[in-house]
């Protein structure tokens, strides 16, 4: 057992925390830019310390637990939401270098999808334990949405798994380096995956659990201070994890396109990763929110059949002589 097994997760946690702070900063900047505003400008040069100041404010706030709340569950819920969000990062291979991936398990993809479903429990319990009707409704909505969209999410990656013949994320990237990036042959799967992923992340246009005009703030209405910060942290850690997963599954991970191999693999990974993160901010600035009933119909009647069609088509094209090298 090497010493870095214990040190690297701590470094990764620090990287994730910095990512979360600056993702929030860039989100505000990008949305401001799209909406012809300036975004944060006051704290630090060009407002660079705005998120740090916000986090500091949250950490020194008074810790309030409502008197009618279920105290142990109220305290447990943010932990239950955050721990799986960070533990899914254990299987993400950032490059093929041995020190940049933590655990090369054979079922990495399923591990990610399975652990991320535990977060639903944290959200539901947070909503229930607050003993507030808006929290309860927000928690129910979040739970229903995350469960419903998990099914197309899982089914849409079946095509990728079939083409790679493996559930290991490193092997999935290696088959893409040998063949083509999955986004081209698996385009339908990619579209379903990206929509389901945005819904899993509870982001616009699927941010119904936090619809402030209807639900005050959703499942974390009663939360303040560092517990609220933990829910937010879990949400943005999932953005980090999901952006990494999309890069790995559909954009060839650290693979350099057009033979530009003089740029290091990690840089390619970060570039592709940033494109997805930007896409999320872009969607948030330009899309309205869906209606609740449309949301469920879309998952069950729209995305689920498409994901199943994608599996059929991939299985069929795998047998066609010329095309089989891409599937």
């Amino acid at each position, binding site marked *: 057992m090497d010493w870095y097994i214990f040190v690297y997760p701590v470094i990764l946690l620090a990287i994730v925390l910095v990512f979360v702070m600056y993702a929030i900063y860039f989100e505000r900047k990008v949305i401001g830019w799209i909406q012809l505003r300036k975004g944060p400008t006051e704290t630090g040069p060009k407002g660079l310390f705005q998120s740090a100041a916000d986090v500091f404010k949250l950490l020194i706030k008074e810790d309030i637990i409502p008197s009618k709340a*279920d105290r142990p*569950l109220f305290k447990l819920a943010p932990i239950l939401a955050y721990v799986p969000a960070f533990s899914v990062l254990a299987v993400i291979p950032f490059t093929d270098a041995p020190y940049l991936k933590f655990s090369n398990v*054979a079922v990495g993809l*399923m591990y990610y999808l*399975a652990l991320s479903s*535990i977060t639903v429990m944290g959200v*539901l319990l947070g909503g229930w334990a607050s003993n507030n009707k808006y929290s309860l409704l927000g928690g129910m909505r979040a739970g229903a949405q995350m*469960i419903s969209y998990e099914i197309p999410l899982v089914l849409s990656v079946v095509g990728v798994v079939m083409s790679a013949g*493996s559930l290991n994320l490193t092997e999935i990237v290696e088959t893409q380096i040998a063949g083509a990036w999955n986004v081209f042959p698996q385009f339908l799967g990619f579209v379903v995956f990206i929509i389901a992923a945005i819904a899993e992340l509870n982001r616009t246009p699927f941010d119904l659990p936090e619809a402030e005009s209807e639900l005050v703030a959703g499942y974390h209405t009663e939360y303040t201070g560092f517990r609220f910060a933990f829910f937010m942290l879990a949400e943005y850690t999932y953005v980090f994890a999901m952006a990494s997963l999309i890069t790995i599954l559909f954009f060839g991970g650290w693979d350099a396109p057009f033979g530009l191999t003089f740029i290091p693999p990690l840089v390619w990974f970060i570039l592709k990763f940033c494109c997805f993160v930007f896409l999320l901010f872009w969607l948030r600035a330009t899309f309205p929110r869906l209606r609740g009933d449309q949301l469920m119909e879309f998952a069950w009647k729209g995305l689920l059949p498409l994901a199943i069609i994608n599996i059929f088509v991939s299985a069929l094209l795998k047998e066609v002589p010329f095309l089989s090298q891409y599937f």
Partner: protein
Amino acid sequence: MNIDGELIAFFVFSLLAIGGAVFMINLTRVMHMALALAFALLSLAGIYILLEAPFLAVMHIMIYTGAVSVIMIFGIMLTKHKVDAHELEPPRFGFNLLSLLGTGLLFAIIMWVIYQFPFVTTGVESPAFKVQDLGAELFKQYMIPFEIASILLLAALIGAIVLARREENE
């Protein structure tokens, strides 16, 4: 018996699983019970990992912790928040004794079956079993049982939808 990491991990996971089960029985609020059950199921997945069955462990987390427990919590969410202590009536005389006898008998039968079962205890080295092998076995050798099980589940699913629909119309 040599004490290594695997043994320690096994005891930790067993303790967590049994602890979760004990809490599940002793807690009074239904929501806490559901959470204790989810915790026990999650700890079982840890034992599967120790048995070098990562696929089983991951599917276990996905189905039992991620789906079954969440559905249970979902159902319980709309129930009453506080439980009144005097609603729980004290157990009748002899009730404890009877339940002890029953569970003791069940435990004895299970232990007897386990000791009768001819487990291979010699150090036979099983060939490395990969996830690909599992898929190949399932879809080649055990194709028909697999399909029958899936049709059974599909029938149950459609039956549930039909039952729920009928109530909605009335």
